């Protein structure tokens, strides 16, 4: 199994990277873009076949170390 995790900055947190990318896009003529958020993407390979156990483990790891709940949100899927 594989966990695919997407981490994004929380709405309230300044995202200067997203802003810089947005400005660059606007500069290049992509003018229908209203916001850019730059986050992280992780793939974690898992052993075993118990999807529910895997889900629990990944959620726990996301909360404890893979993200900082003060500044980041996350979502993931198990495949």
């Amino acid at each position: 199994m594989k966990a695919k995790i997407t981490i994004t900055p929380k709405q309230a947190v300044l995202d200067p990277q997203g802003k810089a990318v947005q400005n660059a896009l606007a500069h290049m003529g992509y003018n229908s873009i209203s916001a850019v958020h730059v986050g992280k993407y992780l793939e974690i390979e898992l052993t075993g076949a118990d999807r529910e156990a895997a889900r629990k483990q990944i959620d726990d790891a996301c909360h404890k170390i893979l993200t900082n709940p003060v500044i980041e949100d996350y979502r993931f899927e198990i495949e």
Partner: protein
Amino acid sequence: MNFAVLQFPGSNCDQDVVHVLHNVLGHSATLLWHKEHSLGDADAVIIPGGFSYGDYLRTGAIARFSPVIEAVQAFAADGGLVLGICNGFQILCEAGLLPGALIRNRSLQFRCEHIFLKTVTTDSPFTNQVPADKLLRLPIAHGEGCYFADEETLAGLRANNQILWRYVNAQGEPTEAANPNGSLDGIAGICNQRRNVAGLMPHPERASEPVLGSADGRLVFESLIHALETRVAETAS
């Protein structure tokens, strides 16, 4: 006094901190590898700057789970004094020993320059020797020093007098241009509610001798030493 100076793979200000504590201020300072489970007989802990674990994942995120940080958690819970400088500040926030987080500088630039700091309160073991109206001129060197916390946390920091240092200009005014990283409220350093754990982004250890252009950083270490000596005197009496 006996200082433990933590050392992670990627720490790079550890020797500077030991130099200031030992050679400049005449105290004992021992380097402690991140795999250690005990702080020994340390009176205080300094978590120095650098790029622990290459800043992988997030600054301080991996260092925060090292064995030595578990010992620091217990030490802090007992009231022990802990100071985190730059990456040390980031580690303390990740470890939950200080509130909030340090994120990418608003300018996206790595800023390496001297700044001015206003000491907001002298009521802490980290600021008690700073003269009330003295601005500290210290170097910064970071890409992720923008202090962030939610509104409620910020309100708590203000209400409990936990903001220790703010970025200001040479006249002592908290202008936007004087804030090198976009920190909320111009925050450069804070302490916890119990006032025994503090962190700051600027580097007092790089400005503790006149030959380096500023000796203002000494005041931070001298405050810590004063606080420790006061504790010893109180225990003895």
